[in-house]
C-alpha cells in the first residue's frame, strides 16, 4: 500500500505539465502580495480512534500581506471534539521571505516562520499540534523550488508545546514530551487549464503533501500523506479538498486522519 502511494505520488509529480505551489496543509516560501488580505474558512473532519466519532474542527482565518517580504495569518480554532461546539483557541503565524532567485517561470525561495498558538482544550495526545490542539511556539524554515513542470516545497520547524490554557500537562511523560521537530515535503501540479487565456478560467490543481513530526524526547514519529484537489476560481478564490492519511503512526494521535475542505477569498490592493 505504501509503495502504491509513493508510486502514484511520483506519477502525479511528473506526468502533468505545469507547476503549482498554493499548498493546502503547508505554506510555500513565497508570500502573498503586499497590501493584500485574504479570508479563509477551513473545516476538518477527523474520525477519532477507536470510537470513529468524527471530530469537526472549524478554523476561520485572516491572512495579511504587509510588504513583499512580511505576511501573517491569524486564525481561531473552533471544534466539537469535547462533545459540543467550543472556541478552543487561536494562533498567529508570521512569515518572512528572505531569499529569492527568480527567472521566468522558475524560482527558488526561502522563508523563515514563527508561530504562537494558544488553546484551552484538554491535552489528549503525544503529538504536539499547534493547529487546534496545543498551546506553544514554532520556528522554522521553508524552501520552495518552482520549476516549469513541478513545484517542490520542504520545511522543517522546531515546535515547543506549552501548558494549554486552564490546564496543566497532566502526566510527567507529557511534560517531557512537549518538544518536537516538524517536517514537510509538498509537490504541486496544474491540471487545468491546458493553456491560460484569461483570469476567469477555472484552474484545477493537484498536490501531494507529506507531513511529519518527531518527538525530541521519545524519538517517536508520525508521517502522513495528504493528497489535495484545488480549484482556483476567477484567479482570486480557492476551494481545497484534501484527505490526510497516516502512513507511519508511532507518535500517538487520537484522530490522525480525515478530510479537509477550505475556501479562501483574496482581496488585492486592500489597504
Amino acid at each position: 500500500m505504501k509503495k502504491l502511494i509513493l508510486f502514484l505520488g511520483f506519477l502525479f509529480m511528473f506526468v502533468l505539465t505545469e507547476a503549482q505551489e498554493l499548498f493546502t496543509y503547508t505554506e510555500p516560501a513565497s508570500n502573498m502580495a503586499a497590501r493584500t488580505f485574504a479570508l479563509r474558512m477551513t473545516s476538518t473532519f477527523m474520525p477519532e480512534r477507536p470510537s470513529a466519532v468524527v471530530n469537526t474542527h472549524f478554523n476561520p482565518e485572516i491572512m495579511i500581506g504587509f510588504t513583499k517580504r512580511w505576511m501573517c495569518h491569524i486564525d481561531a480554532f473552533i471544534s466539537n471534539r469535547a462533545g459540543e461546539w467550543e472556541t478552543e483557541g487561536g494562533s498567529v503565524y508570521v512569515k518572512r521571505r528572505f531569499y529569492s532567485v527568480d527567472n521566468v517561470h522558475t524560482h527558488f525561495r526561502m522563508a523563515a516562520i514563527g508561530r504562537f498558538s494558544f488553546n484551552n482544550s484538554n491535552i489528549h495526545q503525544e503529538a504536539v499540534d499547534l493547529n487546534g490542539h496545543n498551546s506553544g511556539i514554532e520556528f522554522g524554515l521553508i524552501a520552495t523550488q518552482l520549476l516549469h513542470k513541478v513545484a517542490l516545497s520542504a520545511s522543517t520547524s522546531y515546535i515547543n508545546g506549552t501548558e494549554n490554557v486552564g490546564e496543566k500537562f497532566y502526566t510527567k511523560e507529557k511534560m517531557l514530551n512537549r518538544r518536537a521537530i516538524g517536517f514537510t515535503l509538498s509537490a504541486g501540479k496544474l491540471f487545468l487549464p491546458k493553456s491560460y487565456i484569461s483570469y476567469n478560467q477555472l484552474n484545477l490543481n493537484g498536490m501531494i503533501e507529506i507531513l511529519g513530526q518527531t518527538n525530541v524526547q521519545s524519538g517517536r514519529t508520525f508521517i502522513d500523506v495528504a493528497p489535495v484537489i484545488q480549484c482556483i476560481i476567477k484567479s482570486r478564490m480557492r476551494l481545497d479538498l484534501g484527505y490526510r492519511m497516516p502512513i507511519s503512526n508511532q507518535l500517538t494521535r487520537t484522530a490522525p486522519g480525515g478530510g479537509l475542505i477550505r475556501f479562501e477569498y483574496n482581496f488585492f490592493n486592500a489597504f
Partner: protein
Amino acid sequence: MRKIISLLMVTLIITTSTLAQVNKVTIQASGLTCSMCSNAINKTLTTLAFVSQIKSNIKESEFELSIKPNAKVDFALIKKKVEDAGFFVARMEAQFVFQEASIAQDTHLEIQGSQFHFLNVKPQTLNGETKIRFLDKGYVTAKEFKKNATLTKLNCFKTGKSDVCCEGKHNLGMPLYHVTL
C-alpha cells in the same frame, strides 16, 4: 563662477533634453506560473495613475500597460509594484514617440525629467515610435544583468545612479536608466 558656467555649458551640450512621450510599457515578470499570482501583479498595476489599460498574457507572465496621453511614467514605480506583488521584472520595454532625439553609446537623453543612458547603440537620430529596453538591475533577470555588464565599463551601470563616469559629471547620485534599442 567661470567653472560653474563652463560646467553648465558642458551639460547643455552633451545632455539632450527631448520631448518624447511614452505610449506603452511592456513588462515580463519572473518567478510565477499560476493565474492567481499573475492576477496579484495585474491588480497592483491597476493602481498606477499613469496607466489607462492593462493587457495580460498569463502564460508568458507579460503585461502591456497603455499610458494615458501626456502622462509622466514612473518606471521605478512599475518595478516596485511587481516586486510588491512578490515577483520580479525579467524584462521591461517602453514605446516612446521621439522627435529628433540624438543618441549614441554612453550618451544621456533627458525625457520627462528622467535620465536615460544609452548602451550598445550606434549614433543615430530617433523619430516616431521606438521601443527601448531597460538593462538595469531589477529590470532584467539577475543572469542577464551580469551579461549586460559587458556592454559598458562605466560604474553608473553597477549602481543605477549617475556617477563621476557620466558625461558632464552633473547630478551625482541621481537615478538613471540604462537602456538600449
